[in-house]
């Protein structure tokens, strides 16, 4: 008997988001009817190129934006419901912190807004400052911090209420490799504690390391979604798993396969990398749509950058210093 599916924490059903101009005419179709569900205890990754609608989806889930069509439920409530926000933690893409407050004051402030008791607020602030390694800088204004330090405070405020659902927008941006590793460990740890986590990121390796389900957004549509394992698996190829097979058995199996199919079989179960999956999903979506944005559309270079290397061209005329 299979385990029953855990309840859905997020349900997004046919959501459209259209930004309009002053006259009410559509200006940008940010989301075009997306559907997905995130179940309790899952780490869900929202992927997509720039301008694909990831951040818009996050802001819709937080009730900062309202859908033009379709419906969203978050912890069985409308995202506009203020009460539900005490069960959510959100770490924004950039650190939207008050620059004149210190880390200590920042966490205390959000603790008060979350309705924590004074004792709880104090204890959790201490513990979180310890966790993010900023105890030594607790009295310095956040405005003086590096981007990485500010991201860590941003993370701490998202965890202050020990939320059931954690929304992370580009969580590892601005963190050094060690910080990234620690962050991913933290996500896995929280997931083990039954927290539901939604993260959107460009860093595919990070997503691959921590997510068990993903959705790939392109031009406001979901072009691939499902369990990470299923999506990465090459289903046309089969891997036979045998516990401690003897070399003779392997040899025999290979000979049988060679004899039957005429192929040399690798007895293995290859996986595509997430990056391969991501690129193939985007390419197939591109086949029938115009790409909205991105740093290098279709890998093309600007013409003046695609000329021969500098050493092969005529040296520039000497100019006065």
């Amino acid at each position, binding site marked *: 008997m299979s385990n029953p599916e855990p309840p859905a924490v997020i349900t997004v059903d046919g959501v459209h988001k259209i930004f309009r*101009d*002053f*006259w009410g005419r559509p200006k940008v179709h940010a989301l075009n009817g997306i559907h997905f569900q995130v179940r309790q205890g899952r780490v869900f990754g929202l992927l997509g190129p720039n301008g694909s609608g990831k951040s818009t989806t996050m802001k819709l889930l937080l009730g900062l934006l309202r859908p033009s069509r379709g419906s969203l439920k978050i912890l069985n409530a409308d995202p506009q419901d203020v009460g539900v926000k005490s069960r959510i933690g959100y770490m924004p893409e950039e650190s939207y912190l008050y620059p004149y407050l210190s880390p200590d004051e920042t966490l205390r402030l959000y603790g008060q807004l979350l309705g924590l008791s004074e004792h709880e607020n104090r204890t959790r602030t201490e513990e979180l400052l310890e966790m993010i390694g900023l105890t030594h800088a607790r009295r310095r204004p956040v405005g003086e911090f590096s981007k990485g330090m500010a991201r860590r405070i941003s993370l701490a405020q998202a965890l202050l209420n020990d939320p059931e659902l954690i929304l992370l927008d580009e969580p590892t941006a601005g963190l050094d490799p060690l910080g990234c590793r620690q962050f991913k460990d933290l996500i896995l740890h929280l997931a083990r504690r039954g927290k539901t986590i939604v993260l959107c990121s460009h860093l595919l390796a990070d997503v691959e390391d921590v997510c068990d389900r993903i959705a790939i957004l392109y031009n406001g549509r979901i072009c691939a979604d499902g369990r990470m394992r299923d999506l990465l698996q090459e289903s046309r190829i089969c891997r036979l798993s045998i516990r401690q097979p003897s070399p003779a058995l392997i040899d025999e199996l290979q000979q049988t396969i060679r004899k039957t199919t005429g192929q040399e079989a690798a007895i293995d179960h290859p996986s595509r990398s997430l990056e391969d999956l991501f690129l193939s999903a985007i390419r197939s979506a591109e086949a029938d749509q115009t790409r909205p944005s991105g740093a290098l559309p279709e890998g093309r270079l600007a*013409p003046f950058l695609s000329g021969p290397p500098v050493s092969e061209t005529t040296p520039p005329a000497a100019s006065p210093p």
Partner: protein
Amino acid sequence: MEVPASPSSALRPFVQILTIARLTALETLRHPIFLLLSLTAVACILVVPIAIAHELGEQGRLARDSALAFQFGFGVLIAGYAAGSSLRREIETGILSTLLSKNIGRELFYGGKVVGIGAVLALYVLVAIPAGLLAQRVSPLNYEVDTLALLIAPAAVVLALAGAALDNFISRRSFASSAMIHLVITLSAGVLILAAFSRDSTPVPYGQAIEWRLIPAQLLIAEALLLFGTLCLALAVRLKTAAVLAGAAIFFLLGLATDYLLGTFPLLRGWAPHWQVFWQSDALAAGGHLSGDVIEQVSLYAIFYLAGLIAVGIVLFRHQEME
């Protein structure tokens, strides 16, 4: 492949200054506050002479004085805001670091900013001048109302806004900047139409019915505004917008009461700006005109003061570290 010719090195500084100036002007004009302030100035210039017409017998003078005063007052706000916000915002957001990483000298960049602010103020003055001329006609004279002017003046404003709305609907161009251009056109057209009719709406030899002699006085006010804008720009190199406005306000008040406040300090008095020299409304009383000598002297004063302020601004800007 044919490479487009780059501007010759002799012309490059001018191209760079114009590029920075255009950028500054477009950025300022795009913001609704610029339109709001200009519209309020036009409304005050046109309405105040009507609203307080019964207070004094000198309606002509009242309309003239209020037109010049409102042009100056709102111009000061526009100059302060445009200068303060454009440079300060670029310093704070880091845009300036990107711009200065290109091969453009700080002096040229600062010069471009001054020209940009000048362009913004020029557009504002082009709105204020026809508004001032219309105010002369809108204002009742001896309790007699100029019906044609009372129809044309509000119609010019409404038409400008409607035109800008249509422009925004069709071409998606910024409403605020489009409205400013439309205001210049419709208010000027209003003046040109009224130039053919007397106060009782009968045709007169073209141009007679407009008090063109107000324009030189308005241009002197424009020079004062340029000075003020340049001053704010110099302050914005080191101060935040609020501090720029406060500093500029002090400087402004100092300039209004130079003789009273600094009478006993000849050195300070010599260096403080004398806004009074730009206010030549009295010369227009009793049908008078501004003499060429006065215009020349005041303009020379403005040019020297402006050069000084630009020099101070450049020195400050050269030593400014980008945060």
